[in-house]
């Protein structure tokens, strides 16, 4: 899986989590939706770790080196946006 594919998979898991999160705001006792949320959360964690191991930190605290977080490209820069 290349960088773009991995990022797409990660974003898909996050998208599913986010939609379930908003559904759970108005259906807070729906256990099936909650377990689905946990399923995608687990998937997100695995993909996030794989992405960060290969391509650098997605959040500041995901790395021990502050310089690594500052490395280009940022998402609004040509290469970052194309990922």
């Amino acid at each position: 899986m290349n960088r773009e594919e991995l990022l797409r998979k990660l974003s898909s898991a996050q998208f599913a989590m986010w939609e379930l999160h908003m559904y759970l705001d108005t259906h807070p006792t729906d256990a099936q939706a909650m377990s689905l949320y946990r399923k995608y959360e687990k998937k997100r964690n695995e993909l996030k770790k794989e992405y960060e191991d290969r391509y650098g930190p997605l959040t500041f605290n995901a790395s021990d080196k502050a310089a690594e977080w500052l490395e280009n490209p940022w998402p609004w820069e040509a290469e970052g946006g194309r990922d």
Partner: protein
Amino acid sequence: MWNYEKKLQYPVKIKNPNPKYAQIIISQYGGPDGELGASLRYLSQRYTMPYAELKGLLTDIGTEVSKWHPYPSTPHKQCIFEFQKNGDI
């Protein structure tokens, strides 16, 4: 509280930079019906919302709209970069 991830939710790539279109895009960011205003409206409305579910929902929708702020600015940045490269601005 805001947690930032160094990526876009969806990739953006401008094939043909267009200054007129860039103007429309930047107004989608900070203009009268832009994402910036929309996100702040949701996030402000939640303070007077009496129902817990809807306080949660307004918080989340306001957060969701905030996530879209990079979308107008990313193509805008890419357009500016292309114009600079071509010596147009």
